């Protein structure tokens, strides 16, 4: 599908991650200066120039599992630590939020406005750091340059690619259930009222023309929905009213982060292909992933500041319980690469993935994935 999808997927999921972390940092009463530093560190890593360069190269999407490792690293780009259960929950929330936004996106092109909503909010998180702000604006400039020129057809392909990426993911999210935008079976509610997309006419009219193009007849029909005209188009400029609300921060102190997870809510018959069949392409994917993450610079939690652990659940007990009760098919098993079936080795690989940025390998090495596999074999 579209080879222009990864930057949009990464930036929007990253934006959702920051919304959730920001809310949890406040809910957990982390001192403001510390919280600010955590967000600054993550944003700075996320928008790192070299990393963005790799991200914007035309490429296919990664599997959900592989992408998850990228966010694992990103979430740990500061002194803050998340354990497995909290990280699972964070990724669930991020993916379901962006799935919702893509599904309700009025025109395929509006995926860009959703991205801008995330970038606008991210800029608001940055405090006292013009350098980081500049990084984000540089990414904005790149987005405008590349995506501003795409046709409606190309955006449609991008949206289809994203929808296929999120297909069969039906995790129930309490904030969506409360707002009645998600049904109890995990499917999102698609409204049949409100404004039509910009450039679309309110349905309900048939017009007939003669050979000379003159309108000769007009008939109304009952469409079944209750739509109104779009008020105005959102702004695609650096600063401006995006009009569209999708992609803005939906969390606040009164609307905490929560998830319901239930095996029954997913259709077991429609489990994704990747979880069933061993993926013979895993090695190649690893190559791409290593190249991408080679551009991600990670700060080690050393120095004067002591680290802390963030919990995505209200209490530690809840977190422990979630780790125990998580349905197996939702388990990401950080990089469950089929090159080896050995659990122990998977853990080792995860450890290597966690450290390889620090190993300072030559960045141009195209065979980094091979190296990783070689290291696994030596273990």
């Amino acid at each position: 599908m579209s080879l222009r999808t990864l930057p949009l997927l990464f930036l929007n999921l990253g934006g959702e991650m920051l919304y959730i972390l920001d809310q949890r940092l406040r809910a957990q009463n982390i001192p403001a200066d510390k919280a600010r530093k955590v967000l600054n560190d993550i944003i700075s890593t996320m928008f790192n120039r070299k990393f963005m360069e790799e991200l914007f190269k035309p490429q296919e999407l990664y599997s959900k599992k592989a992408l998850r490792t990228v966010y694992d690293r990103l979430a740990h780009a500061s002194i803050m630590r998340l354990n497995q259960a909290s990280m699972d929950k964070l990724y669930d929330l991020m993916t379901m939020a962006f799935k919702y936004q893509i599904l309700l996106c009025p025109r395929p092109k509006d995926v860009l406005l959703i991205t801008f909503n995330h970038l606008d909010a991210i800029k608001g998180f940055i405090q006292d750091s013009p350098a980081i702000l500049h990084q984000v604006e540089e990414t904005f400039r790149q987005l405008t340059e590349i995506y501003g020129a795409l046709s409606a057809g190309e955006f449609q392909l991008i949206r289809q690619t994203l929808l296929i990426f999120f297909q069969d993911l039906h995790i129930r999210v309490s904030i969506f259930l409360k707002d009645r935008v998600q049904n109890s079976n995990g499917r999102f509610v698609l409204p049949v009222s409100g404004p039509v997309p910009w450039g679309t006419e309110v349905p309900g009219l048939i017009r007939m023309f003669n050979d000379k193009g003159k309108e000769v007849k007009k008939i109304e029909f009952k469409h079944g929905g209750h739509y109104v005209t779009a008020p105005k188009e959102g702004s695609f400029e650096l600063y401006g009213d995006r009009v569209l609300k999708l992609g803005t921060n939906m969390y606040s102190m009164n609307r905490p982060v929560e998830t319901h997870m239930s095996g029954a809510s997913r259709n077991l018959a429609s489990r994704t292909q990747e979880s069933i069949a061993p993926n013979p392409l895993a090695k190649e994917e690893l190559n791409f992933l290593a190249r991408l993450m080679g551009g991600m610079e990670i700060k080690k939690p050393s120095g004067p500041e002591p680290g802390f652990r963030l919990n995505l659940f209200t209490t530690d007990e809840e977190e422990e319980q979630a780790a125990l009760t998580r349905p197996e098919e939702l388990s990401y098993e950080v990089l469950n690469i089929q090159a080896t079936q050995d659990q122990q080795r998977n853990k080792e690989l995860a450890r290597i993935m966690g450290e390889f940025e620090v190993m300072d390998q030559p960045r141009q090495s195209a065979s980094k994935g091979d190296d990783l596999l070689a290291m696994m074999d030596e273990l």
Partner: protein
Amino acid sequence: MFRRERSIPLRCSAAALCNNLSVLQVPSRNLTHFGVVHGPSAQLLSAAPEGAPLAQRQLHAKEGAGVSPPLITQVHWCVLPFRVLLVLTSHRGIQMYESDGSVMVYWHALDSGDVSPVQAVFARGIASSGHFICVGTWSGRVLVFDIPAKGPNIVLSEELAGHQTSVTDIATEPAQGQDCMADMVTADDSGLLCVWRSGPEFKLMTQIPGFGVPCPSVQLWHGTVAAGYGDGQVRLYEASTGTLHVQISAHARAICALDLAPEVGKLLSAAEDTFVHIWKLSRSPKSGHTEVEHCHAECVPDTQVCGVRFCDPSGSSFAVTGYDLAEILRFSSV
């Protein structure tokens, strides 16, 4: 009025692709075959009018280099004068099977050539005309394959240039025997329509300009082109001249599929706004122009519809697929 019938369960949910449902009616055995794309695989199944699915088969796109398995873009049954073939298009190429999907009789790899690495390479848009099968591609070219009455000696006989952007859909109708009869229409991502006359050499008759919105689905009925667009509009044109006769503000979101019941001139339109509409097309006895009336609106709640097809020639039943939905919904008139 239409009533919801028992739906047919799918092993895998339908992918968010346009025209993501193909139906083959086999009246002699009172069977209907359905084809739906899941993503990296496609599912074929057959069902009796009331019963559960009888047989299921999964097809995959041929593997190649790349990070992930190639995605399928469309499956479609092509009814030719002497045989029925199932055609599957993907990001790798074009696969043609015997109608039950059991044997692959032909494989055409897409040649990306000197295309820029930014461009996704794929085939999409399938239709048959006489003993030809026409398939659209990402580059805008339409490949014409000459199909023998039996056997695998399928040859690429012609490449049609008319589109500058990716082909979305192709529609044909049996030639009426007259000269200069337009019997094929192709659509693309920019909304441009090309009208062709089939034959040993296909001839471009006319082009109907787009307006920047993709045209994901087209149909052809008695010389009238029906086109569904990304802004929810359905437009009816005179095929031979390209004159616009009817413009319908039909849907609130992008149209993803049209279908025709040729015997009765009924048109189905389905869109991402969760609605399916049925329209009746007719020729005005006075002016000879195509006219249209709205017959039925069906809402499929919370479903981004991605495929719709009539299940019988008289248009009294239809089937619907939706993104993320692991079933085929069926409706029939009461």
